[in-house]
């Protein structure tokens, strides 16, 4: 299932007519990362992206955020599904029965929503804000799992709010009072998180870094941040600002490609429409970026320093060699270079490709050339 989902993601990336939107899907899926190194997350790896991310990338940030935090993949990955308020009905019952273990609360999702999904780390919230938010989130769960006694309260695997798990009472988060009852309480918190200037700045910085270089100019970040605030998180407004800004269009290489970006561009470059005959799962693991498995909710780093490493280069050469052997009969590397590079290649790249002793070698050198490793 994981393999099928990976191949579907790759096939779509190879054939899409809307590559900008596809890039945004990958960007947001990484921003709201779940990681398949946690066994219980594996089945959701593909569906999380398709159900929570993909339908919302052209909408409002709040709707995207809500879809993400309510998705079973996220609820399981960050342990929210079984988080129970200490004063909730369910905890009270357990205490009255003298149950050996009184179920408790888990702060994982609450913390990562603040630190990774919205405000950003060290942006002013405190531990008490995290704990209060975690209390507000109790009851956000999944039907059919996490609480056998309540297994029938919702369709298995779908979001369900369980009042019996919810911590009663009002919450105070970042100085703001939340008197709402039930599921609405955490929704209200999420709405305010979207309005927070720190969130606008956090999202603006990540978008700018992705499209305009590892150390984006403050001016671009501020422009995006203002657009986020003014539009109250309307994502297409941010994308328009990006496109209308000069920084992402600077006539030089802004980014060292991540393994995913490099692999997709290489597969596209050699004209593949599907990756069915390529051991893609292995390939991306070998390159250092197994799909949907960043190993942490922070997602993959979006900086050259994380990807441009000695062994990583050797691995790209190895993969390029294999791809080139498969594709050498279809391409003259000299022609392909003029097609794939925006401008003329550097003298070194030109000499390397031109002087290669076979098409396969020439193609491999093209794929690992300094130009092709960057975007």
């Amino acid at each position, binding site marked *: 299932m994981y393999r099928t989902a990976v191949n579907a993601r790759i096939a779509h990336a190879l054939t899409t007519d809307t590559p900008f939107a596809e890039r945004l899907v990958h960007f947001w899926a990484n921003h709201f990362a779940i990681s398949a190194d946690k066994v219980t997350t594996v089945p959701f790896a593909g569906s999380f992206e398709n159900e929570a991310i993909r339908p919302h990338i052209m909408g409002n940030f709040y709707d995207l955020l809500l879809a993400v935090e309510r998705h079973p993949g996220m609820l399981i990955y960050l342990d929210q599904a079984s988080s129970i308020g200490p004063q909730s009905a369910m905890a009270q019952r357990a205490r009255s029965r003298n149950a050996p273990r009184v179920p408790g609360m888990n702060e994982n999702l609450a913390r990562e929503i603040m630190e990774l999904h919205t405000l950003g780390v060290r942006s002013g919230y405190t531990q008490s804000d995290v704990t209060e938010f975690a209390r507000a989130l109790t009851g956000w769960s999944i039907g059919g799992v996490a609480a056998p006694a309540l297994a029938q309260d919702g369709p298995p695997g779908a979001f369900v709010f369980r009042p019996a798990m919810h911590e009663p009472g009002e919450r105070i988060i970042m100085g703001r009072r939340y008197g709402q009852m039930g599921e609405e309480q955490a929704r209200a918190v999420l709405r305010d998180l979207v309005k927070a200037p720190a969130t606008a700045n956090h999202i603006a910085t990540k978008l700018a870094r992705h499209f305009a270089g590892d150390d984006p100019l403050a001016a671009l970040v501020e422009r995006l941040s203002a657009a986020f605030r003014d539009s109250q998180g309307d994502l297409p407004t941010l994308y328009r600002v990006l496109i209308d800004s000069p920084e992402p269009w600077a006539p030089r290489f802004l980014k060292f490609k991540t393994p995913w970006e490099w692999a997709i561009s290489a597969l596209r470059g050699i004209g593949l429409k599907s990756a069915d005959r390529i051991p893609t799962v292995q390939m991306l693991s070998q390159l250092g970026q197994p799909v949907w498995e960043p190993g942490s909710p922070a997602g993959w780093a979006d900086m050259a320093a994380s990807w441009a490493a000695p062994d990583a280069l050797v691995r790209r*050469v190895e993969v390029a060699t*294999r791809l080139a052997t498969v594709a050498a009969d279809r391409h003259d590397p000299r022609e392909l270079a003029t097609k794939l590079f925006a401008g003329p290649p550097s003298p070194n790249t030109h000499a390397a490709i031109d002087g290669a002793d*076979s098409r396969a070698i020439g193609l491999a050198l093209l794929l690992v050339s300094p130009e092709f490793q960057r975007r």
Partner: protein
Amino acid sequence: MITRRRFLALAASSGGALFLPKVTFAAAETDRRFVFVIQRGAADGLHVVAPYAEPEYAKLRGPIASEISQATKLDGSFALHPALVETAKMYKAGEALFVHAVATAYRDRSHFDGQNVLETGGRAPYELKDGWMNRLTALLPKQKAAPIALAPTVPMALRGLAETTSYAPSAQPEPNADLLARVGLLYQRDPLLHPLWSAAMETRSMATKNERGQDLAALGKLAASFLARANGPRIAMIETGGWDTHTHQTARLALLLKGFDAMLAALRDGLGQFWAKTTVLVATEFGRTAAENGSGGTDHGTASLVMLIGGAVKGGRVIADWPGLSQSALYENRDLKPTMALDAVIAGVAGETFSIAPDLVMRAVFKDGSGARPVTGLIRS
């Protein structure tokens, strides 16, 4: 030294088949095996079969001619590279023959274009859309199994209307030392990638004792396992690479030829009783400069060597219309001058292997190509 006159005499005495075509189309399925081994990258024929008796050779080659002292003397003019131990045994047993100063019609020095001409059998790059092995297959009666390429995809030489297949060795191709060196040059001026690559290569040199090249012996064994089957293919193509020795030629060719020798031995051993029916033809897109370059290697040249190996080969000979290596004898003052056309060699060899008139092969497979007479008398009938 085989002079031009002596070569012509030799060709005439053994070339009866040329004038008396016995069979036009083989009536029954053939029991002959024909293997084409391509050396991608321009193998240095002057290094593999060296004209040791020629004083110019040592002068032109300098230090890289040093192995000549350990080389196996083939006759009064030529010596075989010392790494080719098994090949030398085959030569002694009359199962190996070398044809020197051979070239395709291609006279420029691009690998891609040169390989295209070598594989299509045309006169110019991209002039023909199918490969000479495919057109040769079309001349044969229908075989039980289609010609096979030991490669991930069907190479140009085998491509065309006739059905062919390919089989990739199970081991994934590893980047070899040559490619890694090329990547090093590619990154030379990149401030980010150059130091990273240097670090990677340093680690690698510590981690691996042996050259991570193609396992040619395994490739030979694999090819033999297909060709030895009663209902298996009769025609196969093997791809080898890494022959583009611009630098450190002595060490690199010694290593490469050792593997190449093991591949030929694996073919011989794996084919067993069928070895007597086997013709292996080895060719490269072009040769290398007669003189050594400034980095212990040689650059792209023109004429090179064809090797014919197998029990079906009338071996134990070096055949050449030897042009010599004096400055005036060199092609464009730098390369071994071609004196024999590759298509004429292939037409003769393939025709005799499959009992098809070499003239017909020349016409049907090479569209009369160089117009040269097929070189015959090389293969046992």
